[in-house]
């Protein structure tokens, strides 16, 4: 023991120094990395915003999708977006690692089909009220001139319908076109097998006792 303590290069001392040195080196590296690769801002808001449908309809109670993303980041419910529907809720739930709730009916119901605004141009009086209401700048027109909707830019947010003094704006459903058509998934297997029960012997009805 005394020999160990007296010796300048005892294995114990060397080990202590080596470990201490390593700790310092790694600590320095970690400290440097923490400064160098610091994440600016809250990236979760960006991610949430990218999941939201960007209709800017305000049905969630926020003036746009990004404010709602910020709201969610601050702990708001994630089921307030009817245009996004259950799909968006699921995506957000997946991102945040929470259970996906049902869409809150208080904020509206999910539309079966996407819609776009359509101005009945004969009736338009050119008041520009819808133009001011459109968050997308998707309505073209001028004062006392007929207005029309740029369909490709319309998100179907509904906000132009209410301000129209002559009620000449309809929300029409966007039908499938040849270009937007896509194959549908086959009927779920469970449904089919339920319809045709006797696939294999053990699926046959047990009641009756009639041997086939």
């Amino acid at each position, binding site marked *: 023991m005394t020999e160990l303590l007296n010796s300048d290069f005892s294995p114990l001392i060397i080990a202590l120094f080596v470990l201490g040195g390593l700790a310092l080196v790694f600590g320095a590296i970690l400290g440097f990395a923490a400064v160098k690769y610091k994440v600016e801002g809250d990236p979760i808001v960006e991610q949430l915003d990218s999941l939201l449908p*960007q209709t800017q309809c305000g049905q969630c109670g926020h003036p746009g999708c990004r404010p709602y993303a910020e709201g969610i980041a601050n702990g708001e419910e994630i089921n307030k977006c009817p245009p996004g529907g259950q799909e968006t809720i699921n995506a957000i739930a997946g991102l945040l690692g929470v259970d996906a709730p049902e869409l809150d009916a208080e904020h509206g119901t999910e539309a079966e089909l996407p819609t776009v605004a359509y101005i009945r141009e004969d009736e338009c009086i050119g008041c520009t009220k819808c133009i001011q209401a459109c968050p997308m700048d998707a309505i073209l027109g001028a004062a006392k001139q007929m207005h029309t909707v740029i369909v490709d830019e319309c998100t179907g947010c509904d906000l132009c319908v209410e301000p129209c003094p002559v009620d000449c704006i309809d929300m029409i459903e966007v039908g499938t*076109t040849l270009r937007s058509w896509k194959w549908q998934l086959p009927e779920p297997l469970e449904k089919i097998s339920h319809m045709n029960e006797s*696939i294999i012997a053990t699926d046959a009805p047990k009641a009756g006792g009639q041997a086939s």
Partner: protein
Amino acid sequence: MSQLIYPLPGGVHPPENKQQSLQSALRAAIIPKQLVLPLSQHIGAPAHAIVNVGDRVLAGQMVAKPNGVFSAAIHASSSGEVVAIEDRPLAHPSGMPGPCIVINCDGEDRWQELTPCISPFELSNDELLTKIRDAGIAGMGGAGFPAAVKLKPPVNAQISTLILNGTECEPYITADDVLMQTRAKDILFGSLVLAKLLQHPETILVGVEDNKPKAIVALEQALADLKADKSHGALNLQDLNNISIVSFPTEYPSGGEKQLIQILTNKEVPSGGLPAHIGVVLQNVGTTTAIWDAVRFGKPLVERITTVVGESLKEQGNTLVRIGTPSEDVLASFGFNPEHCERLIAGGPMMGFSLDDIRAPLVKTSNCLLAPSPQEMPAPPMEQACIRCGQCAEACPASLLPQQLYWYSRSKDHEKLEAHNIMDCIECGACSFVCPSNIPLVQYYRASKGDIRQTAIDKEKSDRSRARFEFRQTRIDKAEAEKEAKRAARKQAAEAAKAKAALAKAADPTSTESTNQAATPQSDLVAAAVARAQAQQADPTEQLAKFERALSSAENRRDNAQSKWQECEEAEADLKSKLESRVKQAQLRVDEAAKKLTQFKAEQKSAASVTTAANTAAPDQTPAVDMNDPVAAAIAKAQARNAMSPGDKLAASLSSLETRLAKSEEKLAAAKSDGDDTKAEALQLGLDKLQQKIAVVQQEIAEHKSTALAEPKIAKPAPAKELDAAAAAIEKAKSRAAASATMSPEEKHQAQIESLKKRLQKAEDRLAKAEQENDENVGAFKAGADKLREKLAQLEA
């Protein structure tokens, strides 16, 4: 020349069923009653119709021009009249109608004049491409990719291999087989045109499966003929020598673009890439023939070979069809029996789709019409659960994991699907074909791919929406900021204008006054009075404001102190007293200020009346003002006298008496020396009186001093000469408050009694003295002593 071939991963061997359609010769195209030309027969933007309803068109006439680069022209395939441009049923898996140009054929089949080119190899590449583009050629193998686009590969991509696809791996279909048998030479000519366009690639391969021996023979014969024929001087012999016909074992789906490239070159097209990226261009033999027709004969793509096959037909075989011929017309010419056919299929059994409407026209990509009987092609057996056998993975020619894709498709996990490269699936159907559970796997993949594409489109749209929304937001903010800036500028301008106006106003009165002065030169007095009044008016308002300010601030201070005092009522006694004194002080100041204010107001009133008087009777003003001056002096003097303490007053009178005494002694001495006895006597009398008075005053001073000493309450005699009355009062109040605060009530009482006793003592002394001297003031002294005695009795009681 033997060309190496390479194995294809996966692949299946479905029943070929190619014999049925190869029994009869190729038929000529029928002229239907009506042609229906869909505007979208290719990948890319739909063509743009350039004819109107009612126009008469000739065969080969362009009726729709390409809409952008990624598009193809459409030509009338027979002469007739355009009767409609409207939505018609299409040969599309959706079964949806689409825009079509409908031509009622006149049956004459008159062609518009074609412009053949005898030596197309001497044309420039641009000219060739223009011809191909004008001919509306799109890939005829199945996808319908515009040929002109494909033949203009990326500038930096060096094409080393040109492959002609004569594989035709789908069961039943023999259209390309027949084409190769009948037009082998044209195919080779076409390939030479392609070789020229692609800067003469090193190898030109014509890939044919070994189940088409006749086609292989025909091609080899044609190649040998071309090489032997020296009449085609313009041909590039190098290209010709590079051509090789390659046959390889039949296997489905070797005819897929990527699969054929892999078989012939052992190169794999990268995921998401194009064959051009690995130096390969692949064209279908049908497309190649159409290109040759276009550049050599100027003939647009208006017809093609289609296999019409199936047990519900009386005859089966291949036929030339005019593009746009309705399916029912073609089927009818083969003796179609709808009752024997459960479903009509456009394309082959592996990759084709059900044709819902028999009126759907044949288009540039229609290589087969399959009208099978139910026995020939029974309904697909029921889907069962995946047993994880892995056969699909073995069959997949793209080396994907179909089982994983199936699970992720069912759970709609797009991220995982993309991670498993679902987009590389060629939808060949090999996996579905081998699946022992009859799972329609391809349908899952197609649906998922559609969903993924849709998601991407939605994402793009939402990104654009976000950008538009944010842009609008910044625009609105900017407009708002500009408005605000304008408002601020306006406000500033208004203020500046106001200030200017005020300045002008200030300058104005002086000018009017001067004019007034000039106009009424009555007298200097009047003017002076007016000026004085004005000055007073200007000054007093200021002073008034000052006094008012002082009053309010004093009031404030008092209130502050009072509140503080209330707060500290329970605090220590000295603190309390201090605050109390402060309160009192403040109250005093308030009183003073109020007094001054009222005084000032009164003064002002009088001044105002004076000025009005001055205005009405100006000449009387000056004496009045002059009279005011001595009065004011007297007042001031009296005030000064008032301000003096009694001691000082006595001292002052003593000194004045002494000076007077000194003067009268001087006068007496002078009179005595003059010898004026009477005067001297009178002076002596006055001197005596003065001396008497001085004695009285001296006594009074002594008395006063003793009383001052006897009253310790007044710790600090008021320095009256320095301070004005108000200050003296404040000082007094302060000291009294301080004294009373330090003393308890009993002590105070005692002190008062003490002082009163002293004063009584003194008064009695004086009274006794006065009685001794027989003074006239005895009565007054007596009364004073009585009063003091009374007070003392009161206090003691």
